[in-house]
């Protein structure tokens, strides 16, 4: 056995070993694994992630080990015989082509229902908020509370009316344990609305109004930030999602905000640009 060959095979063996071990350590160690606070949409995405991780993981380890084994069992340089004179194997070629095709087709079709649910079939419900991204902040517009109807006013997402909405900067309030529907657009360059812990991301494109839906089960404050390069301040474009315990809790918050704005002496917040000039086109769906 040639020593050099053994050492090279061992070096290449370190790839699957380090690959699997480091991944496993991260998976076992809570802080190194991405937290998911979504019960419906995010959970489905994570489930698909697990399925793909298993499939690609088995392929990764299998092919890397096959390569190492081929290196390890290759003939020594000073061996008397020549290398095998083989040009291919029709059965093997057809076999692995069909196997790979079958697995890939499975992966492709397995995920179609998930994609349809998280991105194609918009939930039938009124919009909860409207986000305008701009360099380098998020302006979130909510419907005011309608005391007579005892419900939020209808949020006109194409052109949020100043009289029926109020605005917060860099703070998105949502109720827990239900599907939240918001619309994102941009005022200047392309931004991207990204909440890692809810597995949601959607580019905010100037001129387009794009619906996003997601959910969260655990109340609390979570980071959301911009994921599309939008200039030097890109890294500062960070904000928070405030998840309220329940719908009732969220509606109480909406009522409070409305009351505060309606209180005498309180100036009504307005967007600091002329909304008439920015009527975006409704995208998709």
């Amino acid at each position, binding site marked *: 056995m040639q020593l050099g060959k053994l050492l*090279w095979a061992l*070096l290449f063996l*370190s*790839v699957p070993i380090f690959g699997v071990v*480091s991944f496993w350590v991260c998976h076992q160690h809570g*802080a*190194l694994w*991405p937290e998911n606070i979504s019960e419906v949409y995010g959970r*489905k995405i994570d489930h698909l992630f697990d399925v*793909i991780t298993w499939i*690609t993981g088995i*392929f*990764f380890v299998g*092919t890397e080990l096959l*390569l190492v084994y081929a*290196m390890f*069992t*290759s*003939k020594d*340089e000073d061996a008397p015989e*020549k*290398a095998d*004179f*083989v*040009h*291919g*194997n029709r059965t093997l*070629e057809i076999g*692995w*082509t069909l196997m*790979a095709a079958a697995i*890939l*087709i499975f*992966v*492709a079709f397995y*995920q179609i229902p*998930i*994609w349809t649910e998280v991105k*194609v079939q918009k939930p039938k419900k009124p919009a909860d908020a409207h986000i305008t991204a701009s360099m380098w902040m998020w302006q979130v517009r909510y419907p005011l509370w309608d005391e007579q109807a005892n419900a939020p006013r209808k949020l006109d997402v194409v052109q949020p009316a100043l009289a029926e909405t109020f605005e917060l900067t860099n703070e998105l309030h949502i109720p827990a344990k239900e599907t939240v529907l918001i619309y994102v657009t941009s005022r200047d*360059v*392309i931004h991207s609305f990204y909440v890692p812990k809810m*597995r949601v*991301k*959607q580019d905010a494109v*100037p*001129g*387009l109004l794009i619906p996003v839906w997601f959910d969260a089960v655990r109340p609390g404050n979570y*980071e959301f930030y*911009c*994921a*599309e*390069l939008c*200039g*030097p301040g*890109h*890294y500062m474009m960070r904000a928070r999602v405030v998840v309220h315990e329940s719908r009732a809790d969220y509606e109480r918050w909406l009522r409070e905000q409305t009351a505060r704005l309606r209180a005498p002496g309180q100036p009504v917040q307005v967007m600091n*640009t*002329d909304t008439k*000039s920015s009527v975006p086109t409704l995208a998709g*769906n």
Partner: protein
Amino acid sequence: MSSHSENHGGHHGHELSFVRRYIFSTDHKIIGLQFFFTAWFMMVLGGLLALLIRWQLAYPDAEVPLIGRWLWPHNAGKMTPEAYVATVTMHGSIMIFAVVIPMTTAAFGNYLIPLQIGYRDMAFPTLNMLSYWFIWPALACFIASFFSASGPAGSGWTAYPTLSVIQQAAPGSGTGQTLWYLGLLFVGVSSMMGSVNYLTTIINCRAPGMTFFRLPMTTWALFVTAILQAFALPVLTVALILGLLDNLGFTSFFVPQNFDGNWIVNNFARRSAGGQPLLFQHLFWFYSHPAVYIMVLPTMGMASDIIATHVRKPLFGYKPMVFSILGIAGLGFIVWGHHMFVSGMNPTLGTAFMVSTIMIALPSSVKVFNWIFTVWGSKPNWSTALLFTLAFVSFFIIGGLSGIFMASTPTDIHIHDTYFIVAHFHFVIMLGGMFAIFAATYHWFPKMFGRKMNETLGKLHFVFSFIPIFIGFYLMHQVGLLGQPRRYADIRPMLDTEAGYAIMLMNKISTHSIFVFAAAQLIFAFNLFYSMFFGEKVDRNPWRANSLEWEAPSPPPHGNFERIPVVYRGPYEYSYPAAEEDYLPQTHPPIPGEEEHTGH
């Protein structure tokens, strides 16, 4: 570079002046070497930018060593966010358009195609020379942008509008961005000249007996790459010209009707006239996704040739290898939308792009299996070239498999524009493509200079490249999953999350690993230049290889061959039992009883 001078193979009747021979040369080998050295030079620049990026990610609050005080005196030697996004942009643009594409298609393509098909030069030598000289205006634009008043382009190598087309949007969107558009247009002109030349040469100038299915994989890959370039480049050119016109303020192809121009500049709104930012993304990725294959296919071809030669065994499944290259190229044209799953493109369209993208893993996996089975039962010589090629295979497996996460529309939502994708494409282009480029350099160096590169230094270079680069980039998958976005000048604000400390630690490990990798490249640089002048002298076929380039003297004179070779078989007849040696050159007359093998 010039140990030969007298023997012109009877091709040129007169002596050429130094300038005509080495500077404005029409010889494909000189042009190849010009691209070769130009690309290595640009790689040093792009690599230094990469080190700046890594420094900033690991030590966002520390002074940049050596150059910090000089470049950013007003910021206590720390990198500014403007400088960071410009660094990211120029690193990507330079590495893709001025390093990897010129290195694979132009340097090795020029050098190898006529030699491997058995011809004296390219079909259009003057056009070939022009293709080299058109790369210089491009590099001049890239380099000049560093000296423009507001700095180089800062909208990423993808230059998405509206950031890239509104000069007032960001510092880098002014002159720097204009120069970026111009630079890329020049690169495109250069590439187009190269690709029509390659196509014509490969179709028309093959030596007698050199059928298509006797071409070495390198030439096959370069042939298919040339087709990709010829069809995809016009679309990029359109996107760049429209973007340039927008950037200069004449038009608004990519600026929407209702764009709130007042937000950026008071009088901007006047030229808003119903453009669409997503249009640029479609046009850009229609070229730039095939561009991934333009970078990777030639390295796959070279890897196939190098593996077969150095393991002394026929390439496993020659025809499946050819068809999988064609498959990758064909599918490569209908997958561009996978860059746009969360862009606002109609999500139903995303499903279609997802299916085509997933299916492109099929020809890729066929290639991987064939490489592994080429090594199976072989007799490797464990040269540096072979080790780098095997590393290319090993890393390409990772890059290919991590691609499935991105191709899958739902999982892409989470990892899009995070460090996961950064890890993925570096595993394909950097750890894959670059390692194949290293392998190709070690492998064809003896042909280029008549001397071998030092093997001991080569192995040292290999070990100190392989381990750190793997660790450095593998960890990026994890920080990406944890949500670290790309192109953030400072990721520390994420430290308030639980994962923040881990993210920071992994970034530091990545940075230090990549610095070790960078240091190892000094070994390579020394080896390259030392061996050029003092390396071990070799004859014309030091690897005992079969393909035609090894029939020519090393280095080949103008006109390449003493006489045009005649081809009797494919290039991979290694270890033929009935042959005396363990190789059987393509020009060796047929052995009685020999059959034609092309794989199954």
